[in-house]
């Protein structure tokens, strides 16, 4: 292989050495489907001569002797060797490169052949992305890459998606570092169709990225053209209809009234509905808020290349409406991009790419007390569809969800340019210098209009005076890299790659906010500050700015002996302005090693094992991300507003408490893994065990003593290196492929991750609380040593009191709010002190899955193709928090199984409008949210080439697909997969906007 690369280099270097030979061989190269392949390298084995195929896949090579062997290679296909044997015309079929071992993987400041990789790297290819049809790129990582956990924060169009690689280690920032063609970027705004491949560095190999690599690194390579490729236009499009993946069973009006009567009667009150006969089904508010919404996507790409230039340009359009609120929660994304590679000379190569993204999004109130779905679940079915709760029967918070949607007006626009310029200089063959600058320039504007509205007395969503809030946010960053790579082999067995360089990162930006009062006509059309007529005493505007800089130097040495024994070492010195000058610098080493056993004599001839590698890595990575800008000093951005002479006056106050001692957080990562290929690659197995200890964890918002004034408006808790967490686990991936015939082939893959998360230490406090449950109740989630991060802290239950004797025999529960009665939840007296107190609370679940897995199937039969992607998450718990604790609200239908007398229920407590202790956070509210989801199934048909080639089309494929077809779960809420992603306070369900089920039909056209 190395020789081969060497030959290519020589070829491109323009060195030809012609020899007089006897025959000329011609031939035609196609893929498995008979499509001619353009630009295939055809070389004479052992020599430096060669050519490439033309547009029709034809080649001609002269001066070849009968003994010669031709080597045909092409990106994405298996290399083939064909003996000439006197044939003058060769028909050659190249098989697509399922082996993937020669695949070049981006590993950070360079690439490496897959077989030589000694770290834990997952790769997701553009094929996977094409098959899954993700709307956002993150979705393509769910179930396709072991160790990567993807959780949508909501099913709303354009909503954020959280990615954790091998668990959550920090209580603040857990997202991986994302590098798009080498520069810091953002997954959320990319068009999935623009991506060629995704590499995920999961272990100490990410150490080369040092800063922020502690949470893992996602490397995105965008699509480029290929050399000597005729211009190809690809058009992809789909249209789809979306509907909710789930509706909850709720009580209808009659059931509601009957149960309310029971609840009032149980409290000795007069029953509210003496006559239920006329009520019927009532209004189904949930059904009314959900609608069927369209989605449409177009993507156009032109790519190609000549001897010295490659190019790819593209544009895309996505329009998705929400399944709640329609165009009140929609998402539009338009992108345009180019990618250009130019070989200026043999020594200099230039690469430039740029992506422009424009996003337009509207959103409705979701996942909170007062969200649309929360209201839809709690609004009583006895109300008419357009009726307001004017008398406040449902308390101060519940309002008609349809009116709420109607009164929601907002708009968010983002315009973003990002891209990079990279210059490679190859002074001598073994040495390459790369100078690269990547940039992100983004501007967004937001507008939010609150019309005057009155939902009835005391409703907290009443707006007595109309306002419009507007903001402009400008975020920029650049990443400048300069590094050199020296690659050489000595004595044909000592292969060395040495890399050294530096990186400069700057993130800067600012934001501006303002509010206008009294919008003319109380109308969205007039909702702009310039048109508002009102004045107000307060400060109606605000702003911020930030400028964070980082400077790093790094070196890496990779060595392998005969391609069998591989070792590498890295050292990185990082500085970040998040820390004071004294604590700014951190130095982080890491090591990897690998042993390719299949290259050893004892395995070389094995029929079964075609490849076997053991690998291990250990390293320390630094992290300075914990939310917020500078930790070591306190800005004067606290709130200082008072009323003097009857007017609001503003002064100055300290902001967040400073911690001058804050310094680098360190992540120690250990990984041991194995890559195995059996039967010529029919079966591929990858297995890893890993451990990460996160030390000196930068705990943002760590509670500190109140004497420091953190409780003041605009102040806050400091960020302190105050904790230690551990994630350990196992990853396993297996892939089976069978190329039965040219007409039929399939592959099956399965991957699984088992993870254990634990907080191992915290300094200064016993725990950090987070999250919200109910109203005015203690925070339910905790970050506490000995427990998983963000576990739920509440009471264990032991069934339901069936009679007064049981109540009397049990420790008093009065301290939780009321004396127990038959039909109430029975809490466990954990500390055995004879009374139920808050001290009896314990770990009653956590939102972190014990295991996640994906099963993916791909079948090709003649012109048909079928794929299915599934994903499962096991052992994650969710807190049911979409039930308002108010006597008159509607309820989930599970209350039909409530306790109504001795022996009627052991799980669901009685209904009463009186005071009970049933509302405190207990196991009753914690559900197992394990699930398995069929994320995508797709059936495609490619028209026979004979049919389309006559009209100049290379290929045309039609398909039909369903996203989120079905979710298997016992969870009662809308979406067991959704989470806010908060490390402390995640997994609490206020009525998540469920992911939509999308039925889509589309086409892929290439010509």
């Amino acid at each position, binding site marked *: 292989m190395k020789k081969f690369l060497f030959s290519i280099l020589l070829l491109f270097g323009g060195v030809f050495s012609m020899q007089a030979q006897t025959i000329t061989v011609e031939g035609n190269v196609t893929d498995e489907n008979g499509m001619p392949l353009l630009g295939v390298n055809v070389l004479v084995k052992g020599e430096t001569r060669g050519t490439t195929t033309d547009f029709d896949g034809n080649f001609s090579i002269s001066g070849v002797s009968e003994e010669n062997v031709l080597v045909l290679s092409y990106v994405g296909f298996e290399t083939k060797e064909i003996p000439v044997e006197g044939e003058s015309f060769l028909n050659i079929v190249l098989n697509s490169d399922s082996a993937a071992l020669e695949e070049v993987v981006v590993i950070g400041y360079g690439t490496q052949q897959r077989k030589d990789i000694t770290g834990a790297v997952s790769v997701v290819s553009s094929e996977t992305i094409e098959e899954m049809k993700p709307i956002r790129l993150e979705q393509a990582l769910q179930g396709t890459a072991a160790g990567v956990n993807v959780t949508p924060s909501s099913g709303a169009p354009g909503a954020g998606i959280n990615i954790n690689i091998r668990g959550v280690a920090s209580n603040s920032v857990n997202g991986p570092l994302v590098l798009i063609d080498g520069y810091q970027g953002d997954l959320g705004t990319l068009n999935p169709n623009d991506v060629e491949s995704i590499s995920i560095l999961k272990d100490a190999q990410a150490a080369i990225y040092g800063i922020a690599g502690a949470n893992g690194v996602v490397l995105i390579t965008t699509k480029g053209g290929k050399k000597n490729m005729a211009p190809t236009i690809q058009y992809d499009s789909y249209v789809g209809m979306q509907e909710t993946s789930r509706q909850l069973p709720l009580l209808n009006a009659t059931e509601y009234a009957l149960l309310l009567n029971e609840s009032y009667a149980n409290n000795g009150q007069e029953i509210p509905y003496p006559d239920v006969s006329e009520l019927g089904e009532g209004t189904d508010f949930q059904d009314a808020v959900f609608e069927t919404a369209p989605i449409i996507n177009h993507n156009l790409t032109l790519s190609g290349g000549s001897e010295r230039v490659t190019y790819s340009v593209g544009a895309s359009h996505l329009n998705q409406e929400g399944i709640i609120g329609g165009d009140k929660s929609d998402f539009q994304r338009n992108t345009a991009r180019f990618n250009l590679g130019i070989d200026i000379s043999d020594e200099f190569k230039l690469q430039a790419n740029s992506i422009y993204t424009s996003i337009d999004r509207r959103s409705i109130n979701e996942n909170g007390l007062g969200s649309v779905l929360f209201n839809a679940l709690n609004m009583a079915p006895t109300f008419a569809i357009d009726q307001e709760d004017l*008398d*406040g029967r449902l308390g*101060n918070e519940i309002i008609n969800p349809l009116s709420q949607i109607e009164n929601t007006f907002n708009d968010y626009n983002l315009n973003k340019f990002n891209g990079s310029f990279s210059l490679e200089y190859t*002074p*001598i063959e073994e040495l390459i210098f790369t100078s690269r600058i990547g940039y992100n320039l983004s501007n967004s504007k937001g507008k939010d209009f*609150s019309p005057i509205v009155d939902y009835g007395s*005391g409703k907290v969503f*009443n707006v*007595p005076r109309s306002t419009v809030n507007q903001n402009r946010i400008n975020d920029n960053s650049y990443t400048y890299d*300069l590094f050199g790579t020296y690659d050489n082999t000595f004595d044909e067995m000592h292969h060395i790659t040495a890399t050294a360089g*530096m990186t400069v990162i700057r993130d*800067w930006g600012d934001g501006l906010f303002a509010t206008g009062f009294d919008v003319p006509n109380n109308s969205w059309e007039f909702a702009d500050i310039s048109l508002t007529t009102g004045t107000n*005493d*307060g400060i109606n505007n605000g702003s911020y*700015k*930030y*400028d964070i*800089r980082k*400077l790093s130097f790094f070196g890496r040495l990779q060595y392998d002996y005969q391609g069998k024994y591989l070792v590498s070492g890295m050292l990185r010195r990082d500085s970040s302005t998040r820390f004071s000058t004294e604590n700014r610098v951190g130095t982080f080493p890491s090591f990897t090693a690998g042993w390719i056993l299949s290259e050893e004599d004892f395995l070389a001839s094995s029929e079964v094992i075609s490849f076997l590698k053991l690998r291990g890595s250990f390293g320390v990575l630094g992290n300075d991300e914990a939310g917020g800008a*500078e930790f070591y*000093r*306190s*800005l*004067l*951005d606290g*709130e*200082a*507003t*008072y*009323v*003097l*002479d009857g007017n609001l*006056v*503003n*002064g*100055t*106050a*300290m902001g967040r*408490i400073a911690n001058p001692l804050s310094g680098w957080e360190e992540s120690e990562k250990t990984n041991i893994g194995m890559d195995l290929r059996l039967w010529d690659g029919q079966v591929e197995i990858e297995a890893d065990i890993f451990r990460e200890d996160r030390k000196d964890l930068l705990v943002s918002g760590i509670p*500190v*003593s*109140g*004497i*420091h*004034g953190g409780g*003041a*408006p*605009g102040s806050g808790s*400091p960020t302190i290196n105050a904790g230690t967490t551990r994630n350990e686990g196992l990853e396993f991936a297996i892939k089976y492929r069978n190329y039965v015939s040219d007409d039929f082939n399939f592959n099956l893959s399965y991957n699984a991750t088992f993870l254990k998360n634990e907080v191992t230490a915290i300094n200064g*406090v*016993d725990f950090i609380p987070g999250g919200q449950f109910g109203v005015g*109740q*203690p925070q339910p989630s905790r970050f506490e040593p000995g427990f998983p991060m963000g576990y739920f802290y509440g009471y264990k239950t032991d069934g339901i009191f069936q009679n007064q004797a049981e109540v009397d025999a049990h420790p008093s529960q009065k*301290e939780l*709010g*009321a004396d127990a009665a038959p039909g109430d939840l029975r809490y466990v007296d954990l500390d055995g002190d004879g009374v139920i107190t808050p001290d009896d609370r314990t770990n009653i679940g956590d939102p972190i899955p014990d295991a996640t897995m994906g099963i993916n199937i791909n079948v090709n039969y003649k012109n048909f193709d079928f794929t299915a992607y599934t994903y499962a998450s096991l052992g994650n718990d969710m807190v049911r928090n979409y039930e308002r604790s*108010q006597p008159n609200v509607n309820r989930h239908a599970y209350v039909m199984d409530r306790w109504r007398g001795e022996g009627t229920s052991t799980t669901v407590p009685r209904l009463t409008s009186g*005071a009970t202790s049933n*509302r*405190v956070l207990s196991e009753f509210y914690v559900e197992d949210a394990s699930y398995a989801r069929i994320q995508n199934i797709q059936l495609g048909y490619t028209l026979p080439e004979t049919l389309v080639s006559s009209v100049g089309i290379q290929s045309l494929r039609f398909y039909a697909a369903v996203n989120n077809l079905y979710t298997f779960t016992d969870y009662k809420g809308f979406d067991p997969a959704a989470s806010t992603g908060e490390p402390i306070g995640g997994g609490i369900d206020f009525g998540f906007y469920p992911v939509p089920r999308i039925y889509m039909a589309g086409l892929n056209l290439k010509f």
Partner: protein
Amino acid sequence: MKIYSLKIKSVLLLLAVITFTGCSEDYLDKTEEYTIDSENYFNSEDDYYNALIGVYDILQSTYVNVLLGEIASDNTLSGGESATDVIGFQQVDEMSHTPINDNLDDVWDWNFAGVQRANYILEFQDKTEFEGKQTIIAETRFLRAYFTFELMKWFGPIPIKGDERFVLGDEQTIPRASREEVYTQIESDLQFAIDNLDYTAPETGRATKGAAMALKGKVHLYQEEFDDAANVLTTLIDNGPYALSDFETLFEQEGENNEESVFEVQYTGEEGAGFECLQCSEGNVAVGFQGIRNYSGPLFESGFSFNVPTQEAYDMFADDDIRRDLSILDIEAWAAETGASYGEGYKHTGYFNRKYLPRKNDNMGDANLTQPNNYRAIRYADVLLMAAEALNRGNINDQLAQDYLNEVRERAGLREVENSGDALTEIIFQERRKELVGEGHRFFDLVRTGRAAANIDGFTAGKNEVFPIPLEEIEFSQGNWEQNPGY
């Protein structure tokens, strides 16, 4: 070979250029972020004034002292929606509170925030000179005394550090001061304010000489230093510009900052607020919290029905006491009279704290959190009653005590009293309760006069006189601070 070495040279040159341009660590020091931070501030008069606004700001968060202080007393019950609605309020009402109580934690955190902001100014008080600085320093010290005294009332002796901010780690090294040390600092702060302030403030809402004198009198009274208390309070009565006003309008908008107001915490409904930061509200959060649940009718706005007066509190007023129906709203009678409707919350008594009910106004949302009612922290009536109490209990001058007391009674439409000695003491106590019901004073008056256990259900003598130091604070101090007895 020559070409080869030329290449090497050019590489070296390139590297050299890079080293000199790119790698300089200066890059890290030239950020364009804010150059003014907390440590290089105080360079002009404006800086001091603006920082003083920051200290005043914290006064608005003392709404919780008033609301929770009243709930703790025998005047009111907790109320709210249900038994678990703001559990910290419920527990204090039942005197079942423990060191784990978010609302007591708020009292600790917010009042200490006031102390810290005051000390921020005092730490830099010598940095920049300008005319009129003494006024700003005097107001700062008044406010430090105000917050420190509140903390003292709630938690007993607290850690103090003098004219310096607390820094991380102090909680483990600076012990709780003695009672005397805390009071000494408070009194010296107030004396400085008395010496450097005028009776009229440069702007309405700022502290005055009179406010400092009244607070100093109160601080002496709490220590039963009757001579000192009587001295400062009678001086204030004789020299100050204060008078009793019309009780009818005293707690209405038009009664704000009137002649009876000695010190008043200023609020407005001009700015919105949310539950995630109650202390950030520019409105009086306590007012919305004690509003009538789901109220619909004239004059008032609705609220969350906390802090509901007891039947006994209503009944303590004589029928002809004009303060009764202006202090406590009988909602059934009101509904019958005006046709208003309302909802019943937890521990519904049929009464609401009328002095601080939300009045109809166009305050910003969340309207329950931005009610503009100013809190009359120290009223002239309070000053008269304190003076009367000091004169009587200190056996100084019962005649003058009667005069002061009768001044308050007269306004209430009650006849004069002529008692003296212990009988007069008792009447002063009763009058104090009636005059100041709903204003957050009762619990602390009961405690300082040793009558709490006899009057408050569930009150344990020797324990409930002060509230527990929040558990997490005890933990932050790692054994440096001792918990209050009994908790």
